[in-house]
């Protein structure tokens, strides 16, 4: 009995969000760590994280310092370097540069990283040295973004005191140490909000044209339209019934600001895909019996297509 209670308590434990530091796009481009690829006739600069990690000692130092400070707060960071190695192993690196062949980028490198690393929060880091005669100063930005929605969680920014020290590593370390508490305060606000009102995702529902099942969002079941049935399900399964529907027609419904529980009943972390699958499962069952296809668009967005598998 005691064992069962202990097991239940253990499974009910909420998992920690995973965090990863990456250099920002602007820092990568300013320092020459990028690919230039063709996308729809336009030249697009894509950050080359691997090159940055291999060639920039300041970046490695910054990531190590951030990891040290976050570990001190019981939040060790996920390694960008290791994640990139995993991508290589999975031959996913080609996807990062797929647009060299002239194809569209299905996912940005950031999406690719977030998906592969399965991290919850991306910490984007950039800094720049500024010279004032013999003195130097460092401008520093650390911004946290929710990997699910891409929304900014908070940032620590500042320009350090002017110093005769020209060593960028010394000034960078000082900037990181000085700004970390303010950054963590914002992170903590986000965690507390997430625990209270859930994780924010987007769910799109579409309909296959001329589908064999003959359904659209206005198809009625027991006198109730399918869109209303879906809204009722969302009302019951989102945290505090929080979601909005900015657009709806007989073929498309967009649900944004959908607050899903951080973990399902078995204690597993769920993302937009997991949540959309639960909705699809309901639609596949009687009395609806609607064939559905769930497509993933990153951690925070899923599309359910009704009518065919």
């Amino acid at each position, binding site marked *: 009995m005691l064992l069962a209670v202990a097991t239940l308590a253990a499974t009910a*434990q*909420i*998992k*920690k*969000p995973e965090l990863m530091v990456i250099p920002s796009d602007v820092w990568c481009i300013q320092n020459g760590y990028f690919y230039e690829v063709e996308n729809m006739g336009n030249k697009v600069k894509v950050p080359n994280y691997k090159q940055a990690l291999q060639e920039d000692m300041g970046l490695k130092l910054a990531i190590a310092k951030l990891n040290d*400070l976050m570990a*001190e*707060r*019981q*939040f060790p960071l996920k390694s960008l370097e290791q994640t990139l190695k995993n991508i290589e192993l999975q031959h996913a690196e080609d996807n990062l540069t797929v647009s060299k062949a002239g194809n569209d980028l299905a996912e940005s490198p950031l999406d690719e990283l977030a998906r592969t690393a399965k991290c919850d929060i991306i910490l984007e880091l950039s800094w720049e040295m500024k010279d004032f005669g013999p003195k130097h*100063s460092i401008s520093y930005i650390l911004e946290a973004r929710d990997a699910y929605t891409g929304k900014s969680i908070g940032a620590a920014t*500042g*320009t*350090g*005191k*002017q110093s005769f020290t020209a060593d960028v590593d010394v000034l960078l370390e*000082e900037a990181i*140490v*000085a*700004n970390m*508490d*303010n950054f*963590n*305060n914002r*992170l*903590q606000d986000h*965690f*507390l909000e997430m*625990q209270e009102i859930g994780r924010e995702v987007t769910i799109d529902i579409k309909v296959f044209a001329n589908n064999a099942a003959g359904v659209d969002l206005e198809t009625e079941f027991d006198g109730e339209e399918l869109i209303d049935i879906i809204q009722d399900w969302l009302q019951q399964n989102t945290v505090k019934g929080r979601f909005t529907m900015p657009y709806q027609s007989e073929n498309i419904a967009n649900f944004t600001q959908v607050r899903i529980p951080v973990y399902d009943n078995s204690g597993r972390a769920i993302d937009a895909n997991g949540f959309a699958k639960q909705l699809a499962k309901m639609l596949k069952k009687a009395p609806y019996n609607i064939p559905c296809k769930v497509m993933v668009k990153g951690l925070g967005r899923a599309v359910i297509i009704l009518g065919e598998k």
Partner: protein
Amino acid sequence: MKKKLLFILALMVTAVVATVDAKPKAQREMDEFRYEIQCAGNGVQGTYLVRVWTYNKKLKAALEACPRNAVHGVIFKGFVGGDGCVGQRALVREPGAEMEYEDFFNHFFASNGEYRKYISIVPGTEEQMKVDKVYKVGIVVSVQKDELRKALEAAGVIKSLNYGF
């Protein structure tokens, strides 16, 4: 009748004495945390470097209160930055926490209280002036904020970053 008058007079004297005594006591209590706190530079990892200005009618009392006020300021006030000095929010952000954990903080800020573990005074930084019979004493104090935060987390006064996970 004479006894009654004497008794009433005695009561009045007691009340007046009590009132006279209460004012300085209240004033003393107010003076204890009458201070300003400023950023004095970016401290080394795990510390905040602050300049605290304490006001008191007695120079010795003002000097003695400075380190305690520095810790009090880091916990409850925070401080603004500027000129490359990074301002910080208070460690305790829930309003009313000082009252809620009154017993804890009474012990913590007692004359030989635990707050002493988290401070070191930077030598040669003392400044003092007298304005309207009140001393204003300033000193730079290094506050070990990481250790202080851990102590407050352990006491349940503040939530850790890890809270809820």
